[in-house]
């Protein structure tokens, strides 16, 4: 029995197996946001449906849900009714939509067809999205009354997921 081979071999096997088992069950697509727990980057953007400029800092004191989306994003179509319904039911929560790489016409047409219950802001060159670490759409950030991001959700949300994350902002 060659001890060296055995010991080295077992170490290698253990290392490989440990690493791979640890990797199972994780979703490789999901990225943890480093902004969770940090103050939300401030911005002030023009709302396309109402024409006013919404400043994030002015919303402090209320929990804020910032939803990044675009008209060229297919899953966003599915998510929109959920957001609108929840926005109507939760007047104490400020919903804000941010659209990037899109045109006002397309956004207004979308909102006209599918309804809107909260300001939709235009982030013309996507810089706000970059500052928030947005990769794809839709992505939603939950901000508490003090202006700290408490959660980020990637992908279209259902009402349950929305409520679950909102609870963190209400604490």
């Amino acid at each position, binding site marked *: *029995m060659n001890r060296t081979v055995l010991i080295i071999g077992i170490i*290698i*096997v253990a290392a490989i197996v440990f*690493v791979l*088992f640890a990797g*199972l069950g994780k979703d*490789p697509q999901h*990225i943890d946001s480093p902004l969770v727990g940090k103050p939300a980057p401030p911005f002030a953007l023009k709302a396309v449906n109402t024409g006013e400029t919404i400043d994030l800092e002015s919303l402090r004191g209320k929990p804020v849900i910032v939803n990044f989306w675009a008209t060229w994003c297919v899953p966003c179509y599915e998510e929109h009714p959920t957001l609108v319904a929840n926005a109507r039911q939760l007047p104490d929560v400020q919903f804000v939509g941010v659209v990037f790489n899109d045109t006002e016409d397309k956004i207004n047409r979308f909102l006209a067809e599918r309804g809107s219950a909260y300001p939709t802001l235009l982030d013309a060159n996507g810089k706000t999205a970059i500052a928030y670490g947005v990769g794809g759409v839709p992505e939603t950030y939950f901000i508490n009354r003090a202006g700290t991001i408490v959660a980020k959700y990637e992908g279209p949300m259902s009402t349950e997921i929305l409520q679950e994350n909102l609870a963190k902002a209400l604490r």
Partner: protein
Amino acid sequence: MTATFGRFLILASVLVSTTGAFIAYAAGAKRSPEGLKWSQRFAYAFAGLMVIATGVMEYALITHDFSVQYVAHVGSTQVPLWVTIVSLWSSLEGSILFWGFILGIYIAATTWVNRNQHQEYMPFAIGTWLSCGAFFSFLIAGPANPFLSVIPAPLEGPGPNPLLQNHLLMIIHPPMLYLGYVGMTIPFGFAAAALLRGRLGQSFLRPLRASLLLPWVFLTIAIMLGGWWAYEVLGWGGYWAWDPVENASLLPWLTATAALHSAIVMERRGVLKGWTVTLIQASFLLTILGTFMTRSGVFNSVHSFTQSAIGPTILIFLTAVLLFSVILLALRIDSLEAEGRIESAVSREGMFLVNNLFFVVFTFTVLVGTVFPLVVEAVKGKQMSVGRPYFDAMVVPVGTALLFLLGVGPALPWGKTSRKEMLRVLLPPLITGAVVLIIGYVLGVRSAWTLVTLLFGGYAAHVTLAQMWLPLRQRLKKGDAFAPALIDAQLRRGRRRFGGYVVHAGAVIVFVAIAVSSTMRTQQEVTLTRGQSTTFAGYTVTFTGTEERTEPHRQSTIAHFNISKPGGPSGGGTSGGGGGGTLITTMEPRMNQYAAMREPIGTPAVYSTIGRDYYLSIMNLQGDQAGILIINMPMVGWIWGAVLLMGAGGLIALIPARKRTYVVVPESAPTIDDEAIA
């Protein structure tokens, strides 16, 4: 009905392979000739079942039998026939069935070729192969069953992944890859047999090496095809992104190449047997790791199938084979070792050792880089990336060292040589290397890495050609005529040697082409309105318009460009009007929006000539404006051709030597019969 029949076949194959494995191992332990015969029968039976099951699946696909779950999953009446046939390996379950199919054929063929030889090893080898077969049959029967029934059967299916229908290369790349991957099981079985038997006899070295070389050829070509496909289809102008699944295919290739080299020392000097066996086992284990990485969903990759139950199952198998290999090695490696010696470390033998060192470092680096993010996340909970900048930085020096060895290694003679002799063989190729370097410099090469590559490459080319020339020169010295001497020396007798040097020649070209195409690459991003031209890298590109095309699975916008020689009324730079001289060709890159995908996928247009590739990719299309990326890449096409040359060299080396007849009558020994000796 079809589904049921398929399930029956798979269950039968689980039974046959498991029983066969037991019988084979017992036959080996008992050294029973009768047991060996039965092992062979079970091997053929397993193969037969796999072939029929695959046939049944193809039949179901072609007849669009949507009652079979896999067909319902990837089949469609809307796609052309070749897509239907190819969809056998387009999705997870079918691809495992395909794995079993190839494995069955390999096992049957190797068993048949060796049916009357190596009786002391074959039972153990068959036992190991059938154990692997049993695992894959189990996978097919259980977590990855393509033969489940769908009731009621739907009338239509979604068709295979649209990305896979994009290009003809997708037809050959997966089968080649499987032929390479799965083929590594065979030398693994042989190696296990040698370890179980406690010896690795001289006569067994050849089948061991041949069984490694054949899958190596397929794997070499498969990896190149993958890179070529990425280059032609993905639009970013590159062919290797160090994506985890790409790395997974490279790892076994590296260890197999190292094993092929140490096997030469093994045959010549009888040393490094344990090490070669370890490398062969590693090559097989890395293919299982590779298949785990592709199918488990653990890695973020373009190739990833979605996460499924199959991941943990493969991991358990991987753990089992890892332990099997380690324990077997620990128990038996000493009985293989220490049978010879080398005369001097500074010799060809020594160079083989250094070659292996660098291949192992290469393998380790790629492996560490690929799994490191996983480790960090497991241990610290943080996500980080290890991407191309890392791999390029770490791997380029190792590759350059290997190119250096490609020259110096074969130049050095076997055994001990005098200092004078060493200088005699090592210095002249330096001249060729310097010449190549100067030519490169004159042609505009300024990158240090590429210049060094040209120097080493020229050196290695000189040595390779000199070594190829050697047997021919010896014959010409003896007085043979040129042509018959050429054929005899290279193709009839010296095939292994000649084939090896052909591979080396191809490898040198690959190294140089990679260096040149990476460092001499130039690109330009430009936006053109319809009718506008721009001149870049010797061609004038004129945007002539777009065209919409709707196909069942995608919506494409095709942009048309005229490529012409510059030299119209408005020379260089961006110009209005139809600039440029004689029309050379048109290029049609496109943007495809697939129903299933979030982002549009671009297909580039590539115009290849001998010296370089002119590559056009659409960045964005808005109305009459086209934003395009033009890349000029010298020598890219050489990479594909040179790898094919490497494959050809491997095949030449594989052609078995003619059987010879000898009559030997030694003086003092008892008489020996006239016999044909293999």
